[in-house]
């Protein structure tokens, strides 16, 4: 197929729930979730660092799982629940992971940060990382050129500890 005829393809309909709000959208099949978020949805908290699945800056939660949004075509996600950094918490009402990043100075320029935070939230939900070593291993898809890794590991460990303590308390109650 001649690429120039591609635009004559009809747009596709998809329904996406983004940060709790349902959106019925008509989009071209070649639009990535990342470009949909950053462009038409104006949710630019999700960052573009490479567009090739190599940096993790675009990490969001799709049905609770962390995913590089640059690697997902939006049309393939009909019915999905997407949580972006904006959906995790706002400046006046931050998610514990966002708070921990502020407290531990787990960033510098802040550009990889939304991806790191979404990835860290996904990581904790997976429940596979138990040690600092494992956190590092399983967060390695999220690059930080400012080199905030030590502090990011601290922040994640901190939240992991908080969750564990809550878990113990809940079990005891």
């Amino acid at each position, binding site marked *: 197929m001649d*690429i*120039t005829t*591609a*635009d*004559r393809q009809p747009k596709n309909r998809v329904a996406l729930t983004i940060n709790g709000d349902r959106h019925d959208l008509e989009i071209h099949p*070649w*639009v990535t979730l990342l*470009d949909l978020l*950053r*462009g038409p949805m*104006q*949710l*630019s*908290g999700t*960052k*573009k*660092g*490479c*567009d*090739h699945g*190599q*940096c993790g*800056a675009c990490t969001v939660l799709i049905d609770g799982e962390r995913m590089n949004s640059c690697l997902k075509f939006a049309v393939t996600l009909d019915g999905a629940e997407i949580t*972006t*950094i*904006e959906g*995790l918490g*706002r*400046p*006046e009402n*931050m998610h514990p992971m*966002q708070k921990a*990043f*502020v*407290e531990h*100075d787990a*960033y*510098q*320029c*802040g*550009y990889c*940060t*939304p991806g790191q935070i979404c990835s860290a939230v996904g990581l904790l939900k997976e429940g596979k990382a138990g040690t600092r070593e494992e*956190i*590092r*291993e399983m*967060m*390695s898809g*999220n*690059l*930080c*050129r*400012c*080199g*905030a*890794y*030590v*502090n*990011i*590991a601290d922040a994640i460990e901190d939240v992991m500890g908080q969750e564990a303590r809550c878990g113990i308390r809940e079990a005891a109650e």
Partner: protein
Amino acid sequence: MLNEKNIFGFPLPRIDGPLKTTGTAPYAAEYHDPGMLFGHAFYATIASGRIVSIDTAKAEAYPGVVKVYTHKNRPDTASSDDAWKDEVAVPGHPLRPLENDRILYDGQPIALVIAESFEAARDAADLIQVAYEADEPHTNIEVEKAKSYVPPEARKEAFLPTDPRGDAEGAYEAAPFKIDAEYVQEGEHHNPMELFGTTVIRGEDGYLTVHDKTQGSQNSHDYVCGIFKLKPETVRVVNAYVGGAFGSGLRPKHQLFFAVMASLDLKRSVRVEMSRREMFYLTWRPATVQRMQVAADAEGRLMSVRHHAVQATSLYEDYQENVVNWSGLAYKCDNVKLSYELAKTTLSTPGDMRAPGAATGFLALESAIDELAYKVGMDPLEFRVKNFVTYDQNDDLKLTSKALDACYREGAKRFGWSKRSQEPGSMRDGHDLVGWGTATGVWEATLSPAEAKVRLFPDGKITVMAAASDIGTGTYTILAQIAAQNLGQTADRVSVLIGDSTMPKTAVEGGSWTAASSGSAVQAGCLEVKKTLLSLAQKMENSPLAGAEVEDLAIRDNRLVLDKNDQMGLAIADILGSNGMSSVEGHGKIAPDEEQAKEWVSYTHSAIFVEVKIDAELGVPRVTKIVSAIAAGKIINPKTARSQILGGVVMGLGMAMQEEGMIDHRTGRIMNHNLAEYHIPAHADVQDIEVIFVEEEDDKASPIGVKGLGEIGIVGVGAAVANAIFHATGTRHRHFPITIDKIMEGLPAR
């Protein structure tokens, strides 16, 4: 109210933190305007030559495409080189995108597609067809160095190698212990996580608000005004948040030119964002070959230092950095000879990358010093201590402070250096060879001229304004702390407005000078505020401050009071009210003290200690422990300061073991222009790093006692890693980065 949270030395979390962690802080390519157009650059696929023909018909016909620009239809711009030279340009002819048919490097932008959507612009660019006439590429520094030359025009006088002293050749010949070695370093690419992007929002009256990824909004502003002949008051450049830059954002990039050009031509708002691949075709840390000849006597005294460096530059500009002068001032030595040359390559002009010159120079110097210590048979740390120097021997200047000895002591203690055994390969941890290495770093502590405005309101709120940038360095936070400290408020009362070309004049953010310069300007602005308040207060009837001097004053609980007796004073609201004012503003200005510079010079110093563990069979290296001890004057915010050093150390690890722009020298093209193949440290590569700030009083480096931290963290790290690898394996690696294949070849026989 005054509490501890605003004073110097308090680890205040970044005031912009909640915006950054919630995705609320907008970066350059994140501003929207209905009807905005999108640009995508198309770049050359040869390294050198000319465009014979370029066919854009298919791209133009692609749905959604508005216009395609090439050298054939580019709008007119200023014709003199002067207009194209930005604040930090280097000698030569700056690149003018789409100027003509010449190709000077692989990846040079040769067309720009403007379309109604990002996707259309990107996809249409693939339809452009070009025929080239290619010339021979020249990209290998180890070959091109044969044609090296002394740059005819110096970028800065301070970058010229200092004059030789003593008799370096004679002392070398006479000395019992010597090292003569060559160190090669491949080119590096900055790769900040944020892609270079510019969004131009065009107002109805043609006013342009330009959101640019830059380290200096005023530099970008003056650049576009110069080349497009615009009235300065019709353009505003904003860089409110910058997603890293590390030097790559000092000079304007082609996306700024493209976005403004298209916006002016099409009278629309325009955004142009680079791809990650394009980020490899600009400003890079140049490949360098260095020869070190160093010699010592039997007691380990440094007798002779010769350092010669050849660095890559482009065909069109002579980029230069200070690589060799460090070797004349890091240690006491009376016989020194330094030289620096360039070699032309068919690559884009290199640029400053974190600690430009020093990161490179210390790679060679600190490797050679380690080699020499081993020749003499001395502990490498002891050797360094032995050759400690207390003044700048290059220019015979006094140092405003130098607590490097404390860095050595405290760093070694924290690391446990005394438990090290000297013999290479003598330390083990199970299957791993263990190596401990050390190195020293030095960076200049400079001030650049800076201005700031400080406005105080009756309720104690403060606004700080400056065209300074925060590229992740913590500028927002420390300026708030400085204003709060000086005006007796908490930092949360301070709004910091920076990253805007309409604010008071500030140089580009670079060279680690922002904290000292803008910080001092803010302090000066606060003093002006107090002076104005005092003179207003003294005009009031029965003023309790009638005889007071500004030095006697403090601000507490929104009152201007005598520091020693805060019963004596007046409410700021009353002072302003009785003078019919709603706020008071102070304009602070600072400039380097030229008189002082005739006698004194300032540097930051570091001692780095590194542990590597290397799999004895497979050569897999892991850096398991680092202590970085830093002497950098007063630390305003230990939290952000520590992060700056951590970042420098991590980038230093990349420099030592991973980062390498790979070029196919047959075609002159960059092969690994993506983050999967250009390796930078990831989470799993970085284990524990400890940062120590040693006490260092300095009343001369800057009015606020600050020296700056952006660069010193990286200096010396590469050599410390190389020295640790030597200690583990017994093999000296002199070709950086020291990747696993090289380590494997150098493993001791089993």
